[in-house]
């Protein structure tokens, strides 16, 4: 049988927009894998989807599997022939059961003895048969974030499955999912196409849907939406904003996109533009339009699921909805502006932050004090310190404003705007605006160091407070967003190169919160480590290097740079580096057995010739490290290498872990002293070093 095109279409009720493409990938992946397992060759595979259908089109799929020979094992030779050498019933029966003549049976020996084998001809199955087996699994392959049941059925899916279409050339591939059976019937666009129509062959699939007003290929639909939106925007003498995000948002809400322009009264341009664009983008999924200088125009572009009939009605409706929302926004804005932002601070005493952690006013006081601590740690100058204190004072005040109550996603942004309008310094307003950043992985960081410091203390207060209430993230559950905030803090320190010791800041935050750090330190450290790996992984550092550079939380801000140095020295198999790393590893491994953090060494207790030289070498290292910059990591490693022979000599000599407790403690103190110096670059024992030799 020759090659033909195959198409699968899973018809559903409207899937959530973000689920369509992952579902397509999963179905395509399972289909391809299972076809490969079955030995069915095929040409290009295309997945296509709309909110109502998940489709996979496979060109040039082989019509049947190749025939194959299979050897089946039968009875042992000893049971195959009687004394006269005549085949026994066992052998005759085996041959008959395999449908081969007795003479064709061969014998082969292996470790277990000699056995009869029948060579069986296995005819290839047709693609239709193979597909009927595969398709139920392919349909159910998508890993939907949440599944549901409907009607009497037990099957779970992202949204109800309505129909199944599977065609191999012109032939229906019949299969079922629960009581749903596949056929050649598809459905057109909800309002423009036929409720049901037949498709003659897989090759006609895309064109047949197009004729029913379904642009099934989402790539084509994306291009079409983009084209229409650009054309309309150009007609208004402007450009559509947030084009990529909004095209994606609209893509899987429509099967037949038609963009249209709406307008709103220019008076609304007096509302902060971020409010306008938020309403348009987030609430209505409209494209805002700006002129060439970036000024918003009183227009929007909406994408409807349909053709051009009734455009005026649809436009009027969308305008009506938008104006209603903008009116709410304007009312809130005008109410808010009757008071200065600073005058709203007292209202924070009436808003609970998180139950058990007091009000937002309590939080404000904590942020101001934590801000002072961080300003001192960072060595901020007077103007930055003052700005940080003022920003901490005001940063939560917008939560008492109507506009933020109405549009919670504008928290911070509205505060920044109001602060600026009140004449607060731009450093203060900017820090208020940015202090929730980064919200998600990959978000921008606050612009200034003041904004970064404020963001850091805000997140730390939240994380420490929520941990103390028992909100420990587990599995998929993280109701207080602690992972996200921890990752934000790590990103501020690592990506923002902010030299703040997060562990020390955590202790300080616990003091401000009047909570016991003791009970939650373990959870906090676990969270921190986990997220630190996530942030460092984004910089491409492999796991062992990440573990090595997470040696000292006080040095976290240089972790990426240290990681790069380690990686390049490792890759170069730098001899000095390897000497240093191996010696540091020996020291690092053994100091984990120490009983105290003592680093004072008593030379009077030395009894092996290797000890005094090591102490001397450590002292040399201490004084030479003092002369190089804390950031000169490669240079530091080279200095470490100089101690390596002395360490090796100690390890090659007596047992470091001497029986005598005083002796042992003294040696450990010396090695720990060295270890701490090595940890100004890395915990070398975590590195995967090349085999010696």
């Amino acid at each position, binding site marked *: 049988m020759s090659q033909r095109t195959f198409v699968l279409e899973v018809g559903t009720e409207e899937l959530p*927009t973000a689920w369509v493409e992952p579902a397509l990938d999963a179905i395509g992946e399972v289909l391809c894998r299972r076809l490969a397992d079955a030995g069915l060759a095929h040409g290009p595979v295309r997945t296509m989807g709309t909110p109502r259908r998940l489709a996979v089109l496979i060109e040039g799929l082989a019509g049947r599997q190749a025939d194959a020979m299979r050897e089946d094992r039968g009875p042992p030779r000893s049971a195959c022939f009687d004394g006269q050498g005549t085949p026994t019933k066992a052998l005759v029966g085996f041959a008959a059961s395999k449908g081969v003549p007795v003479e064709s049976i061969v014998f082969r020996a292996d470790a277990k003895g000699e056995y009869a084998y029948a060579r069986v001809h296995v005819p290839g199955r047709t693609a239709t048969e193979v597909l009927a087996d595969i398709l139920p699994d392919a349909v159910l392959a998508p890993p939907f974030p949440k599944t549901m049941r409907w009607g009497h059925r037990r099957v779970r899916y992202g949204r109800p499955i309505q129909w199944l279409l599977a065609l191999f050339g012109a032939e229906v591939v019949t299969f079922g999912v629960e009581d749903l059976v596949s056929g050649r019937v598809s459905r057109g666009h*909800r309002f423009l196409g036929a409720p049901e129509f037949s498709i003659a062959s897989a090759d006609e699939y895309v064109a047949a849907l197009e004729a029913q007003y379904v642009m099934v290929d989402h790539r084509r639909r994306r291009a079409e939406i983009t084209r229409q939106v650009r054309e309309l925007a150009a007609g208004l003498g402007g450009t559509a904003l947030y084009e990529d995000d909004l095209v994606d948002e609209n893509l899987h809400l429509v099967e037949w996109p038609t963009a249209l322009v709406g307008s709103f009264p220019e008076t609304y341009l007096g509302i902060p533009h971020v409010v306008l664009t938020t309403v348009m983008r987030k609430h209505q999924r409209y494209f805002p339009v700006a002129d060439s200088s970036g000024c918003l125009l009183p227009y929007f572009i909406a994408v409807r*699921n349909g053709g051009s*009939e009734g455009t005026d009605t649809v436009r009027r*409706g*969308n305008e009506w*909805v938008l104006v209603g929302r903008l009116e709410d926004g304007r009312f809130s804005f005008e109410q808010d502006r009757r008071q200065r932002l600073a005058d709203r601070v007292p209202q924070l005493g009436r808003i609970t932050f998180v139950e058990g952690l007091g009000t937002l006013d309590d939080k404000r006081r904590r942020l101001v004090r934590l801000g002072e601590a961080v300003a001192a740690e960072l060595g901020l100058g007077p103007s930055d310190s003052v700005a940080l204190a003022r920003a901490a004072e005001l940063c939560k005040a917008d939560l008492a404003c109507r506009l933020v109550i109405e549009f919670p996603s504008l928290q911070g942004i509205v505060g920044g705007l109001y602060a600026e309008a009140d004449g607060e310094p731009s450093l203060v307003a900017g820090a208020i605006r940015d202090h929730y950043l980064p919200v998600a992985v990959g978000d921008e960081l606050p612009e200034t160091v003041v904004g970064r410091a404020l963001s850091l203390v805000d997140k730390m207060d939240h994380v420490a407070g929520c941990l103390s209430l028992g909100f420990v993230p587990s599995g998929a559950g993280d109701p207080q967003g602690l992972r996200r905030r921890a990752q934000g803090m790590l990103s501020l320190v690592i990506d923002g190169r902010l030299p703040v010791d997060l562990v020390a800041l955590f202790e300080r935050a616990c003091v401000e919160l009047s909570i016991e750090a003791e009970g939650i330190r373990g959870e906090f450290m676990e969270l921190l480590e986990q997220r630190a790996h996530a942030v460092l992984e984004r910089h491409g550092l492999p796991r062992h290097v990440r573990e090595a550079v997470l040696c000292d939380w006080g040095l976290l801000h240089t972790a990426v740079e240290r990681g790069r140095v380690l990686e390049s020295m490792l890759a170069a198999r730098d001899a000095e580096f390897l000497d240093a790393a191996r010696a540091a590893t020996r020291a690092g491994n053994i100091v984990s057995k120490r009983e105290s953090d003592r680093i004072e060494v008593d030379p009077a207790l030395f009894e092996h010739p290797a000890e005094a030289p090591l102490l001397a070498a450590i002292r040399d290292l201490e004084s030479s490290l003092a002369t190089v910059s804390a950031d000169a990591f490669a240079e530091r490693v080279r200095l470490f290498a100089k101690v390596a022979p002395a360490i090796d000599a100690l390890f090659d000599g007596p047992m470091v872990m001497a029986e005598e407790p005083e002796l042992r403690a003294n040696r450990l103190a010396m090695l720990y002293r060295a270890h701490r110096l090595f940890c100004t670059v890395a915990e070398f024992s975590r590195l995967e070093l090349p085999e010696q030799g």
Partner: protein
Amino acid sequence: MTFQQLLLALHGYWAEQGCVIEQPYDVEMGAGTMAPATFFRALGPEPYRVAYVQPSRRPTDGRYGDNPYRFQRYFQYQVLLKPSPDDAQERYLESLKAVGIDPQVHDIRFLEDEWDAPTLGASGVGWEVWLDGMEITQFTYFQQAGSIECHPVCVEITYGPERLAMYLQGVDHYAQMKWNDELTYADIRQMEERQASTYNFEHADVDRLWQLFCLFEEESRSCLDRGLTWPAYDLVLKCSHTFNLLDARGALSVTERMGVIDRVRRLARACARAYVDQREALGFPLLRQPGAA
């Protein structure tokens, strides 16, 4: 189309779809879902189809009648189809035609929505339905009610008739929305909104509300002890509304809030459980109906 024509058209349409046209339930509640016609009927294996208007009270949403479309008491048009038919969406879209909305000349879209009502131990998935950019309906496949897995699954369709009527009439304030040919929505409801908002926000006596809450709760438990599930549930609704009033008075700290929600939820779950057990003891009578699955 006037407000009452809209409601009558929906009644006519859903009656033709085999729905029982129930009358509004006479206990205050926050949403049509809470009426026994949905909360109880969604449970267990018995088929049911019902449509009704449910006045819904949300004291905190009151605006003294000053806001163009926010009220402390408004209406929900509620439909429950159990089991959910395969053509539930098509039937819904037909209902829009019945109120004069031609999908050809409008833009109708289904936007994902997850619904969760912790007080009722209920959750489901479905969509907000948008008409020309405006949310007009919530369309939900119940997955759980009273913390009990729903099987079969029912679909709940909740229309917001005020917004829909305003849109169809092309007005942007309820004072202009025609209830019938002579009277507007404001003529009928404004005085009530003003007084109710004043009561809810300013005069409801917090101590007495607390006493009422405890009395309703106790009475509900005593009903449950005697197997009187429906009266017990009426009292759960009363608890829930009293809680909403306390909330509007700003009388609840967050701890108290969580505590009270939990007390209501426990009662609601007990009612749901008892309802299913009692229907089972009766042999799920509606399973015997012609056409029942």
